[in-house]
Each structure stands twice: as C-alpha cells, then as structure tokens.
C-alpha cells in the first residue's frame, strides 16, 4: 500500500465503514477493522490539526530546488 496520507486514510475509512455496515465479517475481522478505523481516524484528526504553514518560494538553482521563506515587506 502507498504511504499513508489524509486522502487514502479517508478512503480506507469509508471502505471500512462500508464493510462493517455490510456485516458479513467474522468477529475477528470486525475487531481488526474497527481497530484500524480508530487508528486512521486519529491520523486524520492529527492532519487537520496541523499548524498554519508559511508561504514558501520555489527557487531553482541549476538542477536543485530550494524553498525560501516569503520576503516579509
């Protein structure tokens, strides 16, 4: 699976909600899915709580790139 990000975490959460609602899993599977859902939800909440980020400027220097802080007037 890809690196966990907010988007695929939310998608997986939707998938789990659908599966749990379908109700065809064994108890063991349900438990596993529910535990996974809790982890994903915590991850997503963390992402939403991230602090405000500064505007950066993309600078190309020959073949490498750097990010500069925006010049404050």
């Amino acid at each position: 699976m890809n690196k966990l990000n907010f988007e695929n975490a939310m998608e997986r959460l939707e998938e789990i909600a659908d599966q749990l609602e379908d109700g065809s899993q064994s108890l063991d599977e349900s438990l596993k899915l529910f535990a996974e859902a809790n982890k994903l939800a915590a991850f997503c909440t963390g992402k939403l709580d991230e602090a405000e980020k500064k505007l950066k400027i993309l600078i190309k220097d020959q073949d490498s790139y750097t990010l500069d802080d925006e010049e404050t007037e």
Partner: protein
Amino acid sequence: MCVVESDRMDQEEVFAAVYSVSELTREIKSLLEDHLPPVWLQGELSNFIRHSSGHMYFSLKDQDAQIAGVMWRQRNLLLTFTPRDGMQVRVFGQVRVYEKRGTYQLDVLKMAPAGVGALQAAFEKLKAQLHAEGLFDADRKRPLPRFPNAVGIVTSATGAALRDIVQIIRRRAPGLQMILRPTLVQGEEAAEDIVQAIREFNEFDQVDVLIVGRGGGSLEDLWPFNEEKVARAIRASHIPVVSAVGHEIDFTIADFVADLRAATPSAAAELVAPLHSALRQDLRELKNRCRRAFERSLHQHRDRLMRLRSHYGLRRPADLLYQRRQRVDELLQSIRSSCRNRLVQDQRRLAHNRQLLTSLGPESVLRRGYALCWDEQTRHLVTRVAAVTPGETLTVQLHDGRWQGRVDEISNGKWDQVVVEKK
C-alpha cells in the same frame, strides 16, 4: 562639437518664431481636426472602460498600432450591443486633440461590431486545433486531490491573485503548505516563464496540485494564458492543474486545457483547499458509522452465539455427559444399596442360624428341663434304660451343672406316663 551645436540652436532661436505650448498644440489641433474629415475606422477594442459618468473610453488597435477612443454617453446610449475587449468594431468618428494632455483621440459617433478581432481569431483557431488534438477531452481531466499536502502556485508575486489565494487557503486549510513560483503574468516573456514554472514544479515533485493564473485584465494582459506552449505545458504536467485567469467572464485556452477551470484565483483557492471544518464533520460521521456498525456486528455475533449455544447439536455432548454421569451415580447407588442389602441379609441369616443353632443345640433343651446322662467310665451318653444296671454310677448334666449318682431302680416306660411339674 558643443560649441557648434549651441551655435545652431542660437541661430534657430534667431530665425524662427517661438511658439508657446498652447500655440503649437492649437496648430496641431487645427491641422488634425480641420484636415482629417470624420472617418470610418475598423479595429479591435481593448482597454474598454465604461466610466461611471456613462462615457466609454477604449483603444482601437490592429497588429501594429493603436489609437485612443472615446464615445460620449449621449451617443453610446443608442448602441445596440455591448462593446467588449477583443471585439472587432467599425466606428465612425473624428480625430480630436485633447489639449490639456497633448493627446489625440477618436471622438466616436457611431459604433458597430465587425466580425471577430484578430486576437479572437487566433484564440478560436488555437482552441479548435487543440480541441481536435483532444487536449480538452474530459477523460484527460484528472481529479484534484481531496486533501493536498502542498499546493504550487504559478502567478505574479505581487498581484492581487496571490493575495486572494493565500488568504482563502489560510482560512480554509491552515495546515496546507503553499509554494509560490513567481512568474511574469503579462507581456511577451510571460508565457515562457509560466511554462518554466509548471516544469519546475513537476521536477520538484512535492506539490499535489497547481494553481496557474492571474487576476483580471485586458485580453492582451491575459494573452500569455492563451498561448499554445502554456496550454501544452499544462497538459504535460503530471500534477493536476487548476486554471485561475481573470474574472468569471474571461475564458482562456489555459482554462480549457486545465484539469479544472476556476472562475477567479479566489475560486481556485476554494477548489483546491478543502474546508477543514467540513472534513472534520466528514471524519466524525465516518467514525460514527464505523462505531455503530461495529457495535451492531458485536450484537449480531453475540446473538448468533446464543442461538448456537441453545442448538441441540452443541447441547448433545454436554447432555450425553450429564446422562452418563447420572448413570454412574445410579450404578453407584445400586451397588451401594445391593451391598447394604446383602449385609443386612447376611446378618439376618447369621442371627437366624445362630438362633437355629441355639435352638437345635443341647443347651436350650437342657434349659427346658431335660438332662443328659452319661457313664463316667465309658464316657458314653446313656440313651436307653437297657444300657443301665442298678448300682452303677452315672453323671447327670443339667444346663447349669452336673452331679453323680448311683442307679437304684430301673423301670421301663415312656416319659408321658410320668407327670412332672416344672418348677
């Protein structure tokens, strides 16, 4: 050299009349206004402004030149169409000199649309070509990431567009990283700069979505976003692109080729930045759905377990066990009771036998008054009188003792002929 130059000027001052600015301007004015009769003129409208006074100010241009124009309110009230930038128009008017600013402009009396302008024509031609190539196809449009980690912005560092985008993204999604690659957004070099910026973001490869655009302006101002190379750079980007050029009414080639067209830079910011408050709501709902479904599944499994437990198939082994245990108890019980019975019976038999033994033995007979009699010398029991001779000593045994006596007299006869009273 300097001396020569100054000499020539001196000479000119001497031989020519000296005009005032007003005089020269008046001269120009009469030259232009008197010698140029009202003319019909065709050109493309640009920088069109309808002032709050109702007067219209604009330029008319072709590829090589432009002329300022004005159409006063009382004349433009009669217009049957709405003039717009880029429109090819035919006007009837007269050149007038505006003395205060030393400029000339066309005082337009009549105006009529005259087909599409040259820029408009170029726009339509490129649009048709790219459309035929499939660059605008709906299936080429990629969805925007629902929750980007970083957004790349391609616009001027000083424009209102950037300010609007930053402000709106901060409000909606404070954690979203914004990265600006400042570019020119108008003029001849702008298109190449924009193309480079898009390429750089693709090389840098750390943003999930690009906003490419600028604020409102004339058709010429927006022109870089109508250039073919910009269109191709947008299409070649592996990062989804949102175009954000000008106002709602402005459509550029960039808009057609972009994965999503935003009406304005502000709208682009709203499309790109998910509203965190809404995502929190979504997340809450998902969590609740999972929890409810999980609890329901727990209940279902518990119910199923209960049903299974009461099922005969599962009950049977336990049942058999209980039945066998009961059987063991029963057997033990019966063994126990049969042992006890046997004991009781044996005891009873023993008592009976003892009694029998007692009753059959001599003692009870002796107790009843009978006596045993034997010859002490022979140790024979005397059972008949014929074996006895008078004078002989016999021992008589009762149940509690014996004595010896001599036989005096012998007589025959059965015992029932003797009546004896028991003491």
